[in-house]
């Protein structure tokens, strides 16, 4: 089964929409790989704390954000743009329905945790690593200074089946 976790990148804002994750002008691509350079390229935070060119984003396999991530357009390109950049876990307070389902449909995970647990993750020193134990539903984040914080999460049982199967197409082809 696929392993989840690794170096994390943080985006401290609610309501990041799929237009921001991947702008519509790239929806004319037929290949998922073509989305790779354009992940979050137009996203700007008010405090200037996000740089789409940053090394942190390039190296990340976990994205940590706030609430309602992935709202707006249904484009699965938003999930693929993460996927082709090797990001297979998004952690947030909540997700928009279609984005969340698109993640699990691709066999990768959107993890909802409490606001307090999120604050704890955001407070860690830079160069954070997040380990995801999907069986015991446990997240462990380690800051650059070695400090560790942990919390549990709950996956919807059906979403877990999709992850186990490697996505909805495989699951549906097997069952329907």
């Amino acid at each position, binding site marked *: 089964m696929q392993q989840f976790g690794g170096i994390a990148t943080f985006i401290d804002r609610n309501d990041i929409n799929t237009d921001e994750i991947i702008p*519509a002008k790239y929806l004319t691509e037929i290949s998922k790989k073509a989305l790779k350079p354009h992940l979050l390229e137009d996203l700007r935070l008010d405090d200037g704390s996000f740089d789409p060119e940053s090394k942190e984003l390039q190296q990340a396999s976990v994205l940590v954000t706030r609430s309602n991530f992935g709202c707006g357009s249904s484009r699965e390109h938003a999930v693929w743009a993460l996927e082709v950049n090797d990001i297979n876990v998004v952690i947030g307070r*909540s997700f928009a329905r*279609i984005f969340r389902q698109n993640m699990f449909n691709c066999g990768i995970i959107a993890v909802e945790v409490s606001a307090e647990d999120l604050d704890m993750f955001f407070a860690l020193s830079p160069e954070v690593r997040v380990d995801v134990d999907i069986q015991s539903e446990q997240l462990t984040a380690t800051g650059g200074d070695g400090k560790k914080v942990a919390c549990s999460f709950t996956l919807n049982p059906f979403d877990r*089946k999709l992850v186990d199967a490697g996505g909805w197409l495989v699951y549906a082809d097997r069952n329907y």
Partner: protein
Amino acid sequence: MGQTIAEKIFAAHLRDTPTPNNMVLDIDVVMCHEITTPIAIVDLMDKGMDRVFDPSKIKAVIDHVTPPKDSKTATQAKIMRDWARRHKIKDFFDIGRNGVCHALFPEKGFIRPGYTVIMGDSHTCTHGAFGAFAAGIGTTDLEVGILKGVCAFRAPRSMKIEVTGTMPLGVTAKDIILNIIKQLTVNGATDLIMEFSGSVIESMDMSSRMTLCNMSVEAGATSGICLPDHVTAEYLWPFIKDDYASMDAAVDDFKKWHSDPDAVYEKTLQIDVSTLEPQVTYDFKPDQVKNISELAGSPIDQVYIGSCTNGRIEDIRAAAAILKGKTIADSVRGILTPATPAVYSQALEEGLIKIFMDSGFCVLNPTCGACLGMSSGVLAEGETCSSTTNRNFNGRMGKGGMVHLMSPVSAAAAAVTGEITDPRRFLN
């Protein structure tokens, strides 16, 4: 315990319950457009799964960028076209017959009360106006829909929105839904189905109901839904007249889908529209909504009238009533895109296109175009657009552009003055 309309539709389409809270539904209509479908087609072909579960239940259209603006969009259209031919999909709408999906498919009578409808497009919720369960999905869901005719959803939970009062002059369904989104916020209805009811909804035409349901997703809702009634039956009558002895019989039959009096809702929102003013968005989220009088005087560069939200004949009539005999401001570029060929044709017949052209508007063919910043009216950095569309996200209509969402009436008023304007000054 009573059931909501959504619960009744789910129960009638249940294929599987892989867990008690997850339901796999049989889908009546799988709709496809050329932005999210070609990549599904290519993936299915790569996997040796290039099949369709039932070509009669698949409806396909090229609408987002049409005519194609470049080689890439031409290729997307070609993949769709070849696929539709290969699988003998009869209801495929190509150039000359194509229009914005969520306006075109209802016009063709494809959506009926009690249906389940999916599309790789977040505004699929529009079709809830017909008393159907209609939801936007991603490309993997679309692939499974095309291949197997099923889609998985969590067990439906609903919120009830009761709209009562008397609609003031200059206030439209667009203003009501913008106000609802303001009250709920952009994730206030996440994982919920918004069921619209109340005297205002009962007296609304289908076009207005579609506008309401269309933007339910902007509050995070899975779908909007209206109870099918005589208004629904009248709209659908040309398509269902052979199925029923009379229109009354159809209306009676539709009642089987109505929510029971003791149905359970997660929450309820009551709105009295009697004192509602025309609404407008500011900033970059659709819940950032103010009374238009608060933003009056802000200069604009472009007015865009069209889209699945407000590109139907009723919208064009309402805007034309303001534009008639007037010229738009020199500082403004006006763009009208009637949502479908039938709307365009009807607008021509009624002399509305002439009113728009005489006022200085550019009239485009039906397309989604600039609504999502793909073509046909993209903004430059720093420009502002008064738009009848559905999203004001940062960069939505072009990087660095600002979109103010409003009704067709308010957009027409803005075109005349060159600034955000309370449309009631032109109405009496």
